[in-house]
């Protein structure tokens, strides 16, 4: 059910990124990593974001209940979000969709994310820590200052490897080298990824080569967010057959092997 949450803070953290913390009800605060909310964004001056905007949960907290988002200001909706001040209210609808799943058997997972995708992956670090699963996070961005969720990963004990365009370390070749090293030292029971089709392909190849399972959080424009409208479909390759699925309802987290760019 949609609920009216109250803004605790909404601070800029890097370039166009902001960190929004809301006081909310128990249902919202029960969101699992990979799930998302549909946010009814305030209207920035002269613009009218009509539809809700999907945002992954970045962190949750119980008692008092809190839900956090980390977002990049890109268009009308996120510009509207950026106007929120503490004490303001916002209509949030969630948690929605199917999040990540962690297998208790795993000892070490590898998380590969880029851009705003880092926000989606961050809460995995905490969930993994709770199951005593070690996390290596390969975080990619244009510049080092855009590696936005490094802190949160580190808080939960993840090993963070930052790669950036500016340092010429973010290319698929280098990331593949890093991943192969992790696989070689038996530190990769599963892949988790979000935010880059190029990096997805690298992992799909390695996952296939080494028989490693994987999950990917996908983005797609949404209208309803709850499976009604079929505007958020993507194609998946299921054993050679192309199947269309709704990102909001069947995902946003999908089997890495079946994802298509």
């Amino acid at each position: 059910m949609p609920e009216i949450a109250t803004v605790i803070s909404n601070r800029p953290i890097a370039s166009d990124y902001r960190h929004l913390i809301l006081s909310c009800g128990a249902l919202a605060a029960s969101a699992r990593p990979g799930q998302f909310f549909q946010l009814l964004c305030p209207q920035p001056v002269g613009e009218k974001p009509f539809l809700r905007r999907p945002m992954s949960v970045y962190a949750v907290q119980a008692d008092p209940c809190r839900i956090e988002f980390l977002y990049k200001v890109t268009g009308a909706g996120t510009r509207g979000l950026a106007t929120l001040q503490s004490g303001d209210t916002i209509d949030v609808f969630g948690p929605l969709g199917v999040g990540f799943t962690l297998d208790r058997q795993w000892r070490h997972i590898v998380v590969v994310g880029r851009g705003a995708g880092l926000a989606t992956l961050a809460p995995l670090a905490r969930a993994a820590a709770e199951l005593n699963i070690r996390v290596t996070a390969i975080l990619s961005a244009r510049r080092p200052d855009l590696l936005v969720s490094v802190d949160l990963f580190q808080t939960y004990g993840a090993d963070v490897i930052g790669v950036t365009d500016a340092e010429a370390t973010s290319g698929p070749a280098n990331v593949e080298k890093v991943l192969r090293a992790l696989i070689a030292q038996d530190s990769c029971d599963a892949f988790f990824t979000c935010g880059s089709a190029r990096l997805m392909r690298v992992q799909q190849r390695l996952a296939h080569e080494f028989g490693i399972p994987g999950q990917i959080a996908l983005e797609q424009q949404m209208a309803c967010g709850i499976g009604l409208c079929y505007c958020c479909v993507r194609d998946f390759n299921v054993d050679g057959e192309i199947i269309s699925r709704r990102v909001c309802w069947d995902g946003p987290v999908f089997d890495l092997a079946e994802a298509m760019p």
Partner: protein
Amino acid sequence: MSVDLSVKVGSLSLRNPVMPASGTFAEGLDRVIDFNRLGALVTKTITRELRTGNPLPRVVEQPDGMINSIGIPSKGIDHFIEETLPLYAQYSTPLVVSISAPTVEGFAYLAEAVSVPGVAAIEANISCPNIEEDGKAFAMSPKSAARVTAALRRATTLPLWAKLTPNTGDIAAVARASEEAGADALVVANTILAMAVDLKTFRPSLGNIMGGLSGPAVKPIILRQVYQCARAARIPIIGCGGISSAEDAVEFLLAGATAVQIGTASFVQPDALLRIIDGLAQFCAHRDIARIADLSGALVVEESDEPDMAWTEPAQ
């Protein structure tokens, strides 16, 4: 004051006049609202065959609405009868099944196929292209609307609703023709053909170039069409287009609608259907209106208000 919200759409009694619009409703909404509170349930349009729908992007936002070119992805009639229909057995709310086909024969086939227990009425989405008429939608002309409606009428004994397109130049004539051919009610209307251009790429914003506009932006246009249809036809009208509040719904009822469908509003506010039902009860209660059915067509129009045909009597 307790308000009687029930209405009759032909022979079908509804506990209230509020139902979802086809294509904006699915089983998953039951996580948000209690289906047993709705006037009716209306399925996404189903087709005989499997269909994948249109290329992406399928939606573009407008300041007061959205344009969609979802198309009609469908798992086909068999999947519907076997998998989807049983899911609705648990609700006491009448289920309306929306169907569509590119030929008169295809429509009749589907109408017969969905005339099974558990289905309370058939909504024929005749706003889709008719391949026997050069791809023009059936509801674009009175003649083809009548032809398909008559065939549907022969194919089923269930209440038959014809969903009209707002893109025709003479919706009142189409309404009349559908009534004469045997429709029990008219849904007025579907989305309005529209377009947007992406100024970053100089491409159409939709993969399909054009799509259907819905949401508040279309309300004044569809309200006019409801008024025109209600004056042209005697069968009940179900208003559909841009309704997002109880007040909007009342405008439609006054203009002549018996019931209303809510589409895009549910995307913005997932419990919009319930808010509108509650709002209607309040609206009536505040004004001592005992039965919501009394609002239908209660628009006060004076002689002097009749549309100006001054052209026919030019001033000197």
